[in-house]
């Protein structure tokens, strides 16, 4: 029985190296215990393990690109079982059916898809709901955001933020890691200090004004809003502080619209 500990988060590169080594030595999935550094710390009786030899494996396995793409997302999930699941799928793709991922109703594939889908959605929501606030830092405009992704989604969106805000100085802070961009290089920092995040921004009042006026009080569809923007995201989105009042007043506003219409 092999025990492999992935020390980094999300752990994609580390897992990939270890998985390649295991595959080269043909170690079946049921003979490996995968764990993350976090789960080891929790285990008081954890015993030290030998790192698996990562010398060049005898045989290079070509892993299909579509499979790797799925792993890339699934491995950013916060579920500690992700490493074992990905290795099991990898094993089955190699030795059982190279088209395995097309079998959308296979139990392993379904699990993998569920993880990947959750991460994709989480990462998308990050690019959507993250809000920058402006501060003056060393005489430069600097934009700071605090965001709490459900999974390890920051690394999946770094390209997006660098492309979109290439010539801006910005910092994105999450509970597990921060990314700082100075228009040329990216610096990562683990466990950042959230106290540097400003609690106001001079443009926010315009955004709130816009948000309150762009909605049509004659068509309340609260459930539709909640399914796309669940409450767990609200605390870092300034405009959500208006929602309760907007809904409360909507009926009166809609009635007024109709009444005024009949004048």
């Amino acid at each position, binding site marked *: 029985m092999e025990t492999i500990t992935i020390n980094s988060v999300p752990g994609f590169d580390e897992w990939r190296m270890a998985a390649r080594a295991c595959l080269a030595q043909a170690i079946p999935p049921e003979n490996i215990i995968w764990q993350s550094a976090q789960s080891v710390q929790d285990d008081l009786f954890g015993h030290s393990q030998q790192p698996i030899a990562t010398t060049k494996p005898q045989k290079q396995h070509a892993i299909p690109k579509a499979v790797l793409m799925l792993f890339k997302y699934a491995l950013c999930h916060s579920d500690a079982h992700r490493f074992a699941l990905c290795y099991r799928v990898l094993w089955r793709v190699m030795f059982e059916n190279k*088209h395995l991922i*097309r*079998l*959308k*109703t296979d139990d392993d594939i*379904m699990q993998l898809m569920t993880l990947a889908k959750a991460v994709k959605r989480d990462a*998308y929501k990050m*690019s*959507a*709901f*993250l*809000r*920058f*606030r*402006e501060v003056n830092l060393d005489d430069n405009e600097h*934009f700071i*955001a605090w965001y709490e992704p459900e999974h390890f989604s920051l690394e999946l969106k770094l390209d*997006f933020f660098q*492309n*979109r*805000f*290439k*010539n*801006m100085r910005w910092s994105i802070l999450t509970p597990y890691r921060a990314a700082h961009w100075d*228009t040329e290089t990216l610096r990562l920092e683990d466990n950042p200090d959230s106290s540097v995040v400003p609690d106001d921004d001079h*443009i*926010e*009042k*315009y*955004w709130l*004004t*816009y*948000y309150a*006026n*762009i*909605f*049509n*009080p*004659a*068509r*309340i*569809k609260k*459930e*539709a*809003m909640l399914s*796309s*923007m669940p409450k767990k995201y609200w605390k870092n*989105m300034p*405009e959500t502080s208006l*929602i309760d009042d*907007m809904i409360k007043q*909507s009926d009166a506003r*809609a009635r*007024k*619209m*109709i009444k*005024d*219409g*009949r*004048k």
Partner: protein
Amino acid sequence: MHDKLIQKLEILSDAAKYDASCASGSAGKRKAGKTDKTGIGSLTGGSGICHSFTPDGRCVSLLKILMTNYCIYDCHYCINRVSSSVRRARFSVKETVDLTLNFYKRNYIEGLFLSSGIVGSPDLTMESMVRIAKSLRLDHGFKGYIHLKTIPNASPELQEEAGLYADRLSINVEMPTQPSLNKYAPEKDLGAIHGSMNTLKDKIAEHKTDKTYSGKRLPRFAPGGQSTQMIIGADDSNDKVILGTSVKLYNQQKLRRVYYSAFSPIPDASEVLPLKPAPLIREHRLYQADWLLRFYGFTLDEIVHDDMLDMDYDPKLAWALRNRHVFPVDLNKADKLMLLRVPGLGARTVQKILAIRRHTKLNWIDLTKMRLPLKKLKPFISVGDYAPDIHLLDSNNFELQFKQPKQFELFSA
């Protein structure tokens, strides 16, 4: 202290909320180049990100505002018509540009959706709108999304210039027929609107394929294409007329999107208008039908049996109920076009079924794992280990099981 810009923003975003086409369409990918030291923004391909949602369930993707709500026209359905007593305001070019950039930098929006009332003349209005787009692109290197609602009757030169800076252009047809337009928007002319659409269609096609003499590609021209909007339920046009107009717009003018907006009461409304709002369910059914026409291979005559769509059943289910003889469909054998016609199977599910079928036979358990709407699907399909009772489809009152209890929300306005 109530600053002036806030007041303007209140008026000019409130005035824009009646426009349904809020989403940013796909206009390809774009970002600031390596040597670009000032530009901002990107397009990620696909439809734009929804940065927030309002309590009406709508996605907030763009800064959707009117440049001004002053207007010399008198369109009856429009809150900004000249005879209405609403508060009026106007943004300057700089204010609009700054607001867009400031919102964009904070990750509130994907870009700008700019529409306008008509001030002075159509050309003067259009010129200011083009200046806003031009300033964003050239002065600030803005790579985000820009949608301009072009002004009917503005000169072709201005419309062409708009296409150089905008990702998408649109002109609202507003009413499906000329007689309705005469009645509700006396200054608008369907022929002129279609004429503008045709000019833009040709330009879009030209810039996509043609090259200059030196072999360079022409600059981008409205890569996201054109869209339009029709107001539903203000006039008496039936669904067949409305969808017929859409089909023409899709086929002849190559429009990317036709939006339907159920007429909703506006403050200070004109007397020509109906007092009651159009039911939202009708708007919903029109969108469903529009989708089936574009992506599911249905023809107009198949979808609209009488002059109106069925409000009780979605248009695909309604078609299936009228054509029970073609069911049940064997999911292991039917071709793609037939699978797309099965109630409860969407385009994505059909892709999945086709992929699975290449490797293994589909059984009932596979359907449950795909989380399909089994109750709806059941009478219309067969798989390896399941076939419906052959009398089921022809049984009395078979269709009643699909009738949804009336939802208050969908009917209230």
